[in-house]
């Protein structure tokens, strides 16, 4: 009996202690960030956090001594937007450690947050005023209808055609970017090259949707106008080209983000090219990167080494049409407490030249700072060095040449689901599930109508 009582007392004591630690926890200050993947988290940990590394050795990272908490929700089917909407709508009533301080958003849906009261003016709220070195489109994208800037981008995303040097050499006889560009300078040339690739037993791209963004980010009209869904003209052009290439065996039915596609970037892969900006190397070409970076070659001695990598066997050119793709903006959430930390993070990625130089040189990214990008491009040019992943090519110079001409136009708050939806519907047709191309649009309309019941959908019958 005595033993039992002792036991109970011990359990109660443990319970009390646990309770006590919980209450002390909830009073602790927390810098809370919402994101849809860990890309930015990596750069934040490495360059801004107190720990200044992205190793697994740190369970949590800190900024100015404040613990940083990340809530990551993948963005498929609007799941990230949903989680974010719920959090932002209730942010002011959340407890201290639940409050969202900062969140990440991308071009496809950013307007929704920029034009809402849930985000704050970065100048007055966070002391972020110096956009002199930022690319204009990155500021335009987060400027609301009354001219207030609501966020900052940590990258600039001009995008081009990334090709495999060894395949270029074997089929086109050269792997020199200037020469290869001639083979893909227009869509006609691109299609001819695709035929050459197929004749040599290769594929042009590893996904039917690889070319999608080249067309969509040059769209002449928006997806939604006056609350009416209007499919832009590029969709047909893209579908015809993709279907033709699939029929000729020049591409596959894999989706843009599928693991099947990135497996094609391995040594055994037979794919000539893909499309993307600087973030694409790290983020989508993992199997090609091995465990290397822009400045270091893959390291055999490390556990995550794979001999299948194609590090150094790639290069980038402008391709048939200049475009930009993606970009991650940092926005401050109304109701958050740590305004100083939000400001510090935004300013670090806008103007801390030391950090940004590392981001460009070591990580192969293209920063949102003209001065830093320009300096790296010139330095690479004079010292004859560049991105190791691209066989030493000075890709920064290519991006610098393209970046100034990026213009954001025809953006709507519906873009994410429209861009995803049309690719899925068309993919179903390519996989034989829809028996004619005419059914692609109705399939897409049905999908959008479920998501946005208030939109006027064209009648398809």
């Amino acid at each position, binding site marked *: 009996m005595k033993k039992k009582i002792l036991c109970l007392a011990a359990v109660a004591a443990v319970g009390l202690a646990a309770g006590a630690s919980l209450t002390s926890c909830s009073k602790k200050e927390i810098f809370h960030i919402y994101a849809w993947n860990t890309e930015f988290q990596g750069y934040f940990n490495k360059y801004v956090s107190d720990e200044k590394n992205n190793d697994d050795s740190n369970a949590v990272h800190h900024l100015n001594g404040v613990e940083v908490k990340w809530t990551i929700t993948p963005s*498929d*089917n*609007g*799941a990230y937007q*949903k989680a974010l*909407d*719920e959090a*932002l*709508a209730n942010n002011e009533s959340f407890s201290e450690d639940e409050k969202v301080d900062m969140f990440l958003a991308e071009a496809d849906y950013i307007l*929704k*947050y920029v*034009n*809402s*009261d*849930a985000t704050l003016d970065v100048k007055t709220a966070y002391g972020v005023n110096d956009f002199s070195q930022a690319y204009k489109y990155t500021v335009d994208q987060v400027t609301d209808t009354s001219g207030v800037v609501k966020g900052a981008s940590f990258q600039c995303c001009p995008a081009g055609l990334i090709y495999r040097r060894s395949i270029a050499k074997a089929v086109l006889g050269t792997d020199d970017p200037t020469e290869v560009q001639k083979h893909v300078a227009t869509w006609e040339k691109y299609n001819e090259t695709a035929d050459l690739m197929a004749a040599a037993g290769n594929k042009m791209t590893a996904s039917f949707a690889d070319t999608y963004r080249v067309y969509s980010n040059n769209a002449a009209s928006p997806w939604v106008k006056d609350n009416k869904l209007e499919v832009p003209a590029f969709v047909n052009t893209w579908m015809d080209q993709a279907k033709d290439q*699939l029929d000729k065996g020049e591409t596959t*039915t*894999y989706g843009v983000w*599928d*693991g*099947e596609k990135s*497996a094609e970037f391995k040594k055994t892969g037979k794919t000539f090219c893909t499309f993307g900006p600087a973030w694409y190397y790290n983020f989508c070409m993992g199997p090609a990167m091995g465990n290397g970076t822009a400045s270091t070659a893959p390291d055999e001695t490390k556990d995550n080494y794979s001999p299948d990598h194609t590090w150094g066997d790639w290069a980038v050119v402008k391709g048939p049409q200049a475009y930009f793709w993606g970009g991650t903006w940092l926005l401050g959430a109304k109701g958050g407490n740590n305004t100083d930390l939000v400001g510090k993070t935004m300013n670090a990625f806008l103007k801390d030249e030391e950090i940004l130089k590392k981001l460009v040189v070591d990580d192969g990214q293209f920063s949102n700072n003209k001065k830093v990008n320009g300096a790296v491009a010139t330095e690479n040019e004079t010292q004859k060095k560049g991105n190791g992943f691209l066989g030493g090519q000075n890709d920064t110079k290519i991006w610098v040449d393209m970046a100034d001409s990026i213009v954001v136009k025809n953006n709507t*708050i519906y873009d994410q689901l429209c861009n995803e*939806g049309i690719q*899925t*519907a068309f*993919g*179903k047709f*390519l*996989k*034989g*599930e829809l028996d004619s191309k005419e*059914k692609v*649009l*109705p*399939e897409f*309309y*049905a*999908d959008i*109508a*479920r*998501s*946005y*019941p*208030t939109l006027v*959908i064209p*009648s*398809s*019958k």
Partner: protein
Amino acid sequence: MQSTQINIENSSNIEGLNEVENKPKKKLSYTKWGYIFIASFFVIYLIFTLVPQLLTIYDSFFDYDPFSGILVTDAHPEFCGFLNYQRLFQENALGVIEIYQTIGNTLIMWIIGAIPQMVIALILALIFTSTRLKLKGTGFFKTAFYMPNLIMASAFSALFLMLFSQIGPIYTLFKDMGWIPEHFDFVVNKTSARLMVAFLNFIMWFGNTTILLMAGIQSIDESIFESARIDGASTRRVLFDMTLPLLKPIVVYVLITSMIGGLQMFDVPQVLTNKAKNSGTRTIIMLLNDYLNMKNYGRAGAISVILFIITAVLSIFVFKTINKKEDR
């Protein structure tokens, strides 16, 4: 009874409290404790089940904006009468009424999973409980059959997704054997996706059904079987004229629970085919989830109400049929 009375009288006499004598006879009742103990269930049911259920019905009469909370902060959802219900029965751009399509999908996948599940579970239960066979190691088999149920449905589906993906081993095998056309995708094709969902549900639940049926068979009085055997009844006769009729209540119970579970089928098809937006495996709960995802609580509420009505009708129907037969 008498002795208690005496005791009370005695005690009151001893303490000299005269008022006690005027009080009515004390009767011992434990009913209140019974109510207190079951109250916890009702309180929890009321707060966490009944109130949300009523709110769902209430919500189904309001028109929600997909941008509410962010772009539309001050607007309250508008009352719209039966508009949400009406719109559920409208054709989409493909000329399909999605609610019928999803209910149809749910039923088809439930039936192709549940029928083999019942048949195989019944056979296994009969084998394991057979006093003639006296199988050894039934404990091991029972555990092995039940195992799949312990794995999370989503994890199981994710595993299948990998096995059948375009670089997965099964896809590669099928392709090399020439069994599937070019560009085929298991999760995009209607038939293959439905079969996969049904198969997963079957694998996950047949062990559970086997155990329930075994319990049912074992609860039948063994002496009835013995006397039948002494009277010279064949195994076949014992099975069809004794075991199965006596097992009916359990079979019906298994059927109802399986059907209600089947109507709410969600996790397996969601993980397996939602990314592919396969309209042949979209179940009614997946449709509901699509609306919830876009904060369309009105439309989602309307689906919940319809599903509630369907479940209620089916349950009443099945209950009525068993009771009738048992009365005879």
